């Protein structure tokens, strides 16, 4: 089984983000970067599938700056076999450009399965997986929380509002991973040492002129201080009034 996992280097979800001087990007100074959390589920799933099959290859593909190699080593330390870095100074805001570059790399790779995380923690686009599938002409199932593969077919569970959707599809296919799919393993120390020797191919990519750009980046407004309207049952009428008239939630 040959599986590709597309992974992204993103700022640590617990880092406090500051807006850079240009007003349209995040200031990277002092920011820790990690493997996108949803991509961890995708990497883990690929490794488990390969282990189950007893043979195959797991290739991790990232589009990003040179620094994305450190992120890629995390996936290699978990057990992926090799990496491909599609090197770009910056990741375009136009996600279709990213999907096109990934599709070009994946097209002739002979992959049985292409996995993504369901969402990138930084831009929250949720688009690169489905767009890549479309460009490759492959079936796509998003937000997979349970997966069964049998021969050339697969069944995926998706958690949807108020229920579960069960989807059948033919391989090869593109899937995006949701939490619940598995428990990602820790990169073991031996794995970390082994990752140093695994091959990472670096291929520069260029993009067509962007069709969209980030115009502004703003921090969420500071939360207003809370208010105590009273204590005990006596406070209830006032609370209800405020919820109705001020917060307009009732």
């Amino acid at each position, binding site marked *: 089984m040959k599986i590709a996992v597309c992974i992204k280097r993103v700022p640590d979800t*617990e880092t406090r983000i500051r807006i850079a001087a240009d007003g349209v990007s995040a200031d990277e100074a*002092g920011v*820790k970067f990690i493997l996108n959390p949803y991509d961890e589920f995708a990497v883990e799933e690929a490794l488990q599938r390969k282990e189950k099959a007893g043979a195959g290859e797991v290739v991790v593909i990232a589009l990003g700056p040179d620094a994305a190699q*450190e992120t890629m*080593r*995390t996936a290699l*330390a978990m057990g992926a076999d090799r990496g491909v870095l599609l090197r770009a100074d910056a990741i375009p805001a136009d996600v279709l450009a990213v999907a096109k570059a990934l599709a070009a790399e994946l097209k002739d790779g002979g992959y049985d399965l292409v996995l993504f995380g369901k969402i990138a923690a930084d831009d929250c686009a949720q688009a690169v997986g489905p767009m890549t599938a479309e460009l490759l002409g492959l079936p796509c199932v998003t937000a997979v929380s349970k997966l069964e593969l049998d021969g050339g077919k697969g069944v995926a569970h998706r958690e949807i509002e108020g229920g579960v959707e069960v989807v059948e599809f033919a391989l090869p296919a593109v899937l995006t991973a949701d939490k619940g799919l598995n428990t990602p393993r*820790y*990169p*073991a*120390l*031996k794995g*970390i*040492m082994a*990752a*140093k020797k695994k091959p990472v191919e670096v291929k520069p990519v260029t993009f067509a002129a962007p069709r969209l750009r980030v115009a502004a980046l703003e921090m969420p407004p500071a939360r207003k201080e809370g208010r105590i309207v009273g204590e005990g049952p006596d406070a209830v009428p006032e609370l209800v009034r405020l919820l109705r008239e001020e917060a307009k939630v009732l």
Partner: protein
Amino acid sequence: MASRFDGVDFYDVASLLSEDERAVQATVRQWVDEKLLPVINRHYVEGTFPKELIPEMAQLGFLGANLPEQYGCAGLGNVAYGLIMQELERGDSGIRSFASVQGGLVMYPIFAFGSEEQKRRWLPKLASGELIGCFGLTEPDFGSNPGGMITTARETGGGWVLNGAKMWITNGSMAGVAIIWAKTGAVDDARSIRGFIVPTDTPGFTAKDQKGKLSLRASDTSELVLQDVTVGKDALLPASQGLKSPLMCLTQARYGIAWGVVGAAMACYDEALRYGKQRVMFGRPIAGFQLQQQRLADMLTEITKAQLLVLQLGRMKDAGTMTPEQVSLAKRNNVDMACECAREARRLLGANGILVEYAAMRHLVNLESVYTYEGTHDMHTLILGEAVTGLSAFE
């Protein structure tokens, strides 16, 4: 839900680490947050070692991590090894002690003084956690002066017979194998000290849990008694020779301690900072008062110095130039510094600081053991004193 630890790194020490050193740190840090911290308080209060964590610690490569891959170890450099100790002790000194003993005091002597056959026989099982080890040097009447020990090993036709008692032995009751140091010659001849690999199920070998500990409660500390314990010739570590051999082991373990306690200090600082920003008294966060800021500034300064100290120590260890006296300086400084941080953090937390829900007091009392074991603070003062003056104050 365990909250995540983001580290204390005021001088961007992370930028002095290699990519794989950072990756090792990240793995251990995450493991401590997710697996150790959720269970440590219960074990601490109940006075039990979290044995259930051993298989995963082993599988991830935390045991004997700086020993070669051919014996089932991770083959890491010494800085990465130090970072493991730092992150483990951020969780609890007892867990770091377990790993220090297994790696630095059991696997290391087999690696350094054992035959190739002994290495192949014992190291993979110790690395995989299938077998736990302990290190018996200290005796009831010989602590700071281990050279005075009275445990003996007498050669017989087929092997050796050991007699004596060992005190304060970490992992003692749960160990399947003990490294026992004993005199093979006259009882006043410290040069006759040799090391033995003794399976703990050998008749005559007993271990008894040390009761009543108020420190390192999540650690197994035991007394060992050896009464006519008969082992084969292959129990002797052939290259062990005199008191110098166990002291070489202690250098390994002390190196890990010098790193480890920085983790405990980081945990205390982090807790104090978070608490200080959120606890309001006299209408503002207590972290806004100068006295508490001094506490925090002092802790941060000492932690930062200690981080740089151990990093350079590790680079020297990798280069093969590190001396035991340099390790003494780092053990002495860093343990003392961590004790101070824990105490100040505990005080900053006010009454909450005495609760087990907060880590400061657990670290504070744990560190009192660390202050004493592996050469007391005083003994390292004397070792440094001798190193700079050429005059020994204790021999």
